């Protein structure tokens, strides 16, 4: 061992002390992070139980109406057929809503299980959007909301515009956007859907003139189970999953979503999706290239 001078010894000690305090700092940071995570978990657990009570209402209520209404139809007098039409309309709207909510819940479960993968095909975007609009047309009519659809893509003459993407995910994203727009619109208003495309991106805006979202709330609406009006007295239905699903699906497709909203003036949600490539980077679809390059390392 070499002998250290006092000065060297002091320096060494000082260094070590400093190093130690660095570690202590790090530990402090880590434990802070841990506390934060624990807090989040607790919050989320509370939200989850709220969600479950919420969801059972979402499912049980429509079913009760459907059962009740269909029973009434069965016992209706023949000359009263006009009554039947309105009851069937109610059944349809309850069932439609139920179907929509269930789809969302199942997709959420799939996302959380890590089983959602892109499923790419050439998609006729105009058709897909029109289908979704049609499916909501009864809801819109009931609230006297006009859905305006502007398809601003010029694509050859008389040709359809195709875009490589995942049509099922696209449909669910659009349904959620449109559902929200209608849900938070006032009666006798308008929802505008604008579609544009450039080289690589498809952009869809859904604009409503409804209640709007304050700036503070714009940040939290994407959180799962979060609803701005989650009180017992809330007028609006829903489970607060819609936007978090939309975001997760967009994640899978490499897209993004933005809000532009002013309280009291309505909101515009803009979704932007890149055109999917057939080839996942580094792998051709055939998969032959992956067979053993000589420079593979083996672990």
């Amino acid at each position, binding site marked *: 061992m070499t002998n250290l001078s006092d000065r060297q010894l002091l320096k060494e000690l000082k260094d070590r002390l400093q190093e130690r305090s660095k570690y202590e700092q790090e530990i402090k940071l880590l434990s802070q992070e841990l506390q934060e995570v624990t807090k989040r978990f607790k919050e989320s657990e509370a939200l989850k139980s709220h969600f479950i009570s919420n969801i059972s209402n979402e499912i049980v209520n429509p079913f009760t109406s459907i059962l009740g209404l269909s029973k009434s139809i069965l016992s209706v007098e023949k000359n009263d057929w006009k009554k039947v039409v309105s009851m069937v309309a109610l059944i349809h709207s309850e069932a439609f809503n139920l179907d929509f909510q269930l789809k969302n819940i199942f997709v959420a479960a799939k996302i959380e299980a*890590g089983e959602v*993968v892109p499923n790419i095909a050439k998609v006729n975007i105009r058709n897909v959007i029109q289908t979704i609009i049609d499916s909501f047309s009864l809801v819109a009519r009931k609230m006297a909301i006009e859905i305006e659809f502007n398809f601003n893509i010029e694509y050859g003459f008389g040709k359809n515009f195709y875009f490589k993407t995942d049509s099922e995910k696209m449909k669910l994203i659009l349904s959620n956007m449109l559902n929200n727009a209608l849900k938070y619109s006032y009666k006798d208003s308008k929802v505008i859907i604008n579609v544009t495309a450039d080289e690589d991106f498809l952009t869809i805006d859904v604009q409503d003139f409804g209640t709007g979202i304050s700036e503070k709330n714009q940040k939290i609406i994407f959180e799962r189970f979060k609803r701005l009006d989650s009180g017992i007295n809330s007028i609006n239905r829903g489970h607060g999953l819609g936007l978090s699903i939309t975001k997760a699906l967009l*994640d899978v497709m490499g897209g993004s979503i933005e809000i532009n909203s002013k309280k009291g003036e309505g909101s515009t949600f803009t979704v932007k999706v890149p055109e999917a490539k057939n080839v996942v980077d580094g*792998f051709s679809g055939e998969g032959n290239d992956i067979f053993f390059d000589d420079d593979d390392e*083996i*672990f």
Partner: protein
Amino acid sequence: MNQYLQHFLYPSTLFASKEPYMVKTILGSCVAICLWDPVAKIGGINHYMLPNWNGNDLASPKYGNIAIEKLIERMVQLGSRRENLQAKIFGGGDLIAADRSAMLIGERNIRVARIMLEEKNIPVVASSTGGRKGRKILFFTDSGEVRHKFIDKRTY
């Protein structure tokens, strides 16, 4: 070699199987953990993008802490015993090197893997992590073997 079924593992998803599968995936700052049970010959792999779940989004395997829990759960469901599992860790490169503000996602992803696996007493038998390059890996679920290759800069 053709008896292998193939699966491409997308980010934020996970995969496990008793059948002999060849799972391919590409990693940048993402991390993939390959779990293998040499007794039951079951292999599973995840591919997460961020270290910890923020508590707001869906609790999906996009997040390391969730992806690791869920992968182990899935392996156990398929019939693995926790104490037989062994792990290999890949990825966590620092691709966005020019931009330091990327907050070292890769490094934090690796750390979550190490911490959680240690906590669960799952030995890490091999790893290739960090660095400045992306990786392409092939994982064979029946043998636990991983073929690994660096690729040039790509953002994944």
